[in-house]
């Protein structure tokens, strides 16, 4: 039976894309001449900040004398990048030139019983969107619309959805990314970590990375500062079951058994307390619950941890002493993608506690107090108060969740035992849900049950295949966006402005949101003709102007308070006790362990291996896997397999295998084996973001395998709803599995 919302892989979508076709890339190549002394001499530069990941480096887009975008480089004045983009940022222009881009609105139609997309005018597509949103509001109330968003475009649709009357707004950057860390940190220090992380790596004497694979995780400023730290001879300690790039640069690599980090952290705390390596003045003045902590870790010796983690007690002591001797100029990195095993908030707590003992929070070489520019909001009317919001979708679970939980929102879209679902419509922008959210069967079930789904994207990513209407956004090279206000050592603003007109019929998100709002009679929430007006108004409130920013790209402002704690400075933390809570009152109140504990996690059964995943420095999730410049660097992921395992299975380098997980889900595509000592014998490893199954992605389709597709049993973090994704076990299929015929 054909379901109502067939995933549309190949479709009429072609025509528009084809028409523009191969041209763009050829152009890039065609300029080549015999002259090795680069032909282009007349450049203009236009400020932007990068949208290839969420570090948001400010840069300059260069155009040649014909106005063609030729390159993008970092802005020297910007502290996020110090004039140097990462490979993804440098290759970001591929996003603009990608000939597979979405260039016209598409609407789902049924032709001879087959569903396909038809190109539509903006007027028609927006009309369909507005009509359906109205229907949902009338039938179920506006609360039944959920917004899934990530990246810059999210802001405008958040405004739209709130004006419409819904508070059901979620981002994958919470429950699939840094949520547990923010909750763990807030419980401890009274403040979240935020982005960019205020790690003072540049000046640190000791950097401890727990899983955090900086160097592969290319968050630019961190990578740069880690390199500076190496130059300065800082000690790096890396805890990772895989020999990561960072591990290879470390003085100590602790090849931990996966899923046992909490035991190591507790043992470190044990040593640091027992050998009195902690910062006594700091602990006494600023922390709460030291004695209880001391009591708690009394038996958690390195010998105890050795049995769990496989790390030699000697190495545990040595590294603890190294941290102690560097303190407070030490960073036990909070990590970023921390939704691993479902007890991630507790692991983050342990990391926070360790930092507190070492006195690194608010100290030079530890964590600085970041600051951002306080930019007034452009005046718009008050949003209506929704009758219920994302909290209702949690059904009393995850009491410390600070925002919506994507999987809970998805669950709430599925009708259950005679009960209708709460969520009836989805608005999706800038997030490729099928390759982002664990538990794809659940996702697909939810989508099938929806009344309406609209997706805004720049590319024909998988998520667009499920939509009723697809709206093409132009890329970040072709639009104004909100000012970047992210915090840093000094407060900064950065401007993004268009370097070229939008290709085809693509439009900026602010324009799309405004049009829909007007059709819904909510135009007063977008009281401007052009987003430029908002930027200029905001900039004028802080003593600058759009004109100034168009020339400079970034602007530095004065700090309002000191970067670090002063010696013995009285300081009130925003916790219930006003102190750094080694012992969490908040957790206690909610019935969670106020001091972190190690609990064992399931282990792979025979012939199964733990599916480990991570980043490749030249790609961002699934969004770059079709980028012509970046696929040139890496066009598929491979499966890291330990030589011992390869021998058992008789696998050869480069051989294609399929993977089957513990729930019997088989990867859609094969993945090539890389036999390497860099991975343990109990795990396999792949880079996240590959294994695309939308044929419209001409370079990415069928290249490599998708980790997301295999993660079908996320372990929820009871505290805040994070989805632990590293409990997946896979086995190899050496021959192509026979698949059920597609209906």
């Amino acid at each position, binding site marked *: 039976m054909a379901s109502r919302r067939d995933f549309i892989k190949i479709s009429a979508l072609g025509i528009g894309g084809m028409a523009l076709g191969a041209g763009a890339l050829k152009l890039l190549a065609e300029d080549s001449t015999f002259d090795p002394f680069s032909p282009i001499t007349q450049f203009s530069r236009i400020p932007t900040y990068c949208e290839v990941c969420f570090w948001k480096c400010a840069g300059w887009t260069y155009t040649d004398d014909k106005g063609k975008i030729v390159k993008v480089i970092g802005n020297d004045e910007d502290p996020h990048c110090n004039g140097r983009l990462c490979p993804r940022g440098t290759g970001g222009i591929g996003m603009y030139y990608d000939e597979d881009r979405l260039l016209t609105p598409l609407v789902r139609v049924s032709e001879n019983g087959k569903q396909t997309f038809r190109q539509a005018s903006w007027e028609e597509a927006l009309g369909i969107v507005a009509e359906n949103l109205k229907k949902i509001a009338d039938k179920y109330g506006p609360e039944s619309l959920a917004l899934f968003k990530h990246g810059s475009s999210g802001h405008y649709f958040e405004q739209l959805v709130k004006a419409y009357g819904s508070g059901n707004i979620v981002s994958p950057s919470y429950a699939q990314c840094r949520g547990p860390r923010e909750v763990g940190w807030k419980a401890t220090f009274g403040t979240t970590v935020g982005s960019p992380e205020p790690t003072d790596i540049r000046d640190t004497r000791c950097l401890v990375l727990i899983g955090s694979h900086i160097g592969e995780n290319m968050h630019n400023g961190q990578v740069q500062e880690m390199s500076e730290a190496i130059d300065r001879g800082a000690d790096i300690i890396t805890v990772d079951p895989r020999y990561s790039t960072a591990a290879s640069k470390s003085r100590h690599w602790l090849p931990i058994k996966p899923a046992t980090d909490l035991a190591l952290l507790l043992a470190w705390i044990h040593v640091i307390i027992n050998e009195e390596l902690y910062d006594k003045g700091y602990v006494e003045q600023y922390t709460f619950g030291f004695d209880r902590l001391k009591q708690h870790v009394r038996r958690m010796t390195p010998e105890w941890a050795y049995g769990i983690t496989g790390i030699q007690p000697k190495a545990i002591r040595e590294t603890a002493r190294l941290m102690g001797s560097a303190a407070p100029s030490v960073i036990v990195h909070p990590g970023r993608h921390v939704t691993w095993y479902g007890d991630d908030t507790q692991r983050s707590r342990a990391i926070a506690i360790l930092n507190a003992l070492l006195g690194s929070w608010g100290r030079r070489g530890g964590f600085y107090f970041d600051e951002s520019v306080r930019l007034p909001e452009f005046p718009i009317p008050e949003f209506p108060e929704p009758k219920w919001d994302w909290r209702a979708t949690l059904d009393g679970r995850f009491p410390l969740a600070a925002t919506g939980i994507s999987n809970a929102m998805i669950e709430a879209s599925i009708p259950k035992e005679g009960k209708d679902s709460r969520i009836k419509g989805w608005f999706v922008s800038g997030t490729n849900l099928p390759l982002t959210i664990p538990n794809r069967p659940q996702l697909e079930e939810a989508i099938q049950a929806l009344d309406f789904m609209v997706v805004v994207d720049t590319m024909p990513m998988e998520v667009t295949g499920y939509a009723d209407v697809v709206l093409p956004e132009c890329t970040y090279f072709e639009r104004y966006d909100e000012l970047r206000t992210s915090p840093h050592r000094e407060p900064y603003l950065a401007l993004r402005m268009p370097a070229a007109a939008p290709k085809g019929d693509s439009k900026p998100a602010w324009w799309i949101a405004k049009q829909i709002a007007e059709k819904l009679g909510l135009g007063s929430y977008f009281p401007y003709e052009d987003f430029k007006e908002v930027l200029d108004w905001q900039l004028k409130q802080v003593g600058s102007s759009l004109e100034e920013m168009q020339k400079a790209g970034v602007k530095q402002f004065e700090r309002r308070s000191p970067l670090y704690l002063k010696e013995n400075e009285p300081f009130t933390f925003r916790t219930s006790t006003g102190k750094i809570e080694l012992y969490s009152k908040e957790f206690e109140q909610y019935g969670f362990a106020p001091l972190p504990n190690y609990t064992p996690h399931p282990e792979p059964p025979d012939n199964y291996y733990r599916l480990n995943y991570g980043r490749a420095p*030249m790609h961002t999730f699934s969004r770059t896997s079709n980028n012509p410049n970046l*696929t*040139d*660097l*890496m*066009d598929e992921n491979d499966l890291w397999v330990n*030589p011992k395992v390869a021998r058992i299975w008789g696998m050869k380098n480069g051989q294609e295998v399929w993977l089957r997980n513990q729930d019997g889900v088989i990867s859609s595509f094969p993945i090539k084996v*890389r*036999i*390497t*000592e860099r991975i343990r014998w109990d795990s396999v490893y792949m880079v996240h973001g590959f294994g695309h199954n939308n044929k419209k992605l001409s370079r990415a389709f069928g290249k490599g395998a998708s980790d997301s597709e295999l993660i079908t049993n996320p372990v929820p973090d009871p505290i805040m709803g994070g989805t632990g994704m590293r409990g997946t076990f896979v086995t190899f299929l050496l021959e192509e599995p026979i698949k059920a015929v597609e209906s």
Partner: protein
Amino acid sequence: MNEEIIISGRNIPMVDPHLNIWHWPISVYLFLGGLAAGILFFAGLYTILGRDKNLPTAVKWSTFVAPFALVLGLIALFVDLKHQWYFWRLYTTIRIESPMSWGAWVLLFITPLSFVWSASYLGELIPGWDWKLGILKRFDRWVQANRLPLAWIMAILSLILGIYTGILLSAFNARPLWNTALLGPLFLTSGLSTGAAAIMWMSGKKDERQFFTRIDLILIAIELFFIIHLFMGFLAGPEVQLEAAELFLNGPFTLPFWGLVVGLGLILPAILEMLELRGWKIPAALPALLILIGGLLFRIIIVEAGEITRYLY
């Protein structure tokens, strides 16, 4: 386990995963160049030695092959150029250190010379041949009159050509298989041997054929000697050359090289030639063809295998 991989996705056509810039036309070119060099060398040599009477095939008839071989060889070379219409750039400079440049210039002179040389025997070959045009007649007379100095020039140029086709590859230090002083003499010998084989085949005179059979046997013996020393050198050499030798001793080229080139292309014809000298009736074409095919295969294999071998670092 040691791993060495490129992680930035490099996969350049004709360079990765291993070099494949030169294809069979280059081997054909080297083969035809060597063959022409052999023929012209013998023609020049025996003209100088005044043996044109009893070695007519060597001095006269076989040389008709040379211009065709050279032109075909040049076409093959041209086919494998990637920027063909800049070909003339070869003749805007002389690069003393570049064997290619030497080759280009030698060919510029020896190709017309080979035409002139063989054309001057057209009259003998085709009774009643008439050059028609006065200028051609005069030129033909001039050639006949200056045959000896021309023979000297031809012998010297053909020797340079022969050496060039040999050292062309060995000049490339970067390819461990080619990086040996023995490869030049080996190619030169092989070129002379193919030349001798061609003469053997074309000659209708028994004594001339036997004479060149003897020459060829000596050349084959020298070749085998060089080949053995080549591999002894490799086995005593650095790791990269050991790896190069591996390709031939226990690798993809073992059978083609030892079976086809050495067995069918050198040893078998040598046996046939010896039997012929002992008075057996062997068709002249058989050993000659084996040697010619062997010579071509030899070049194809060495070019291809050489491109696989590389420095490790």
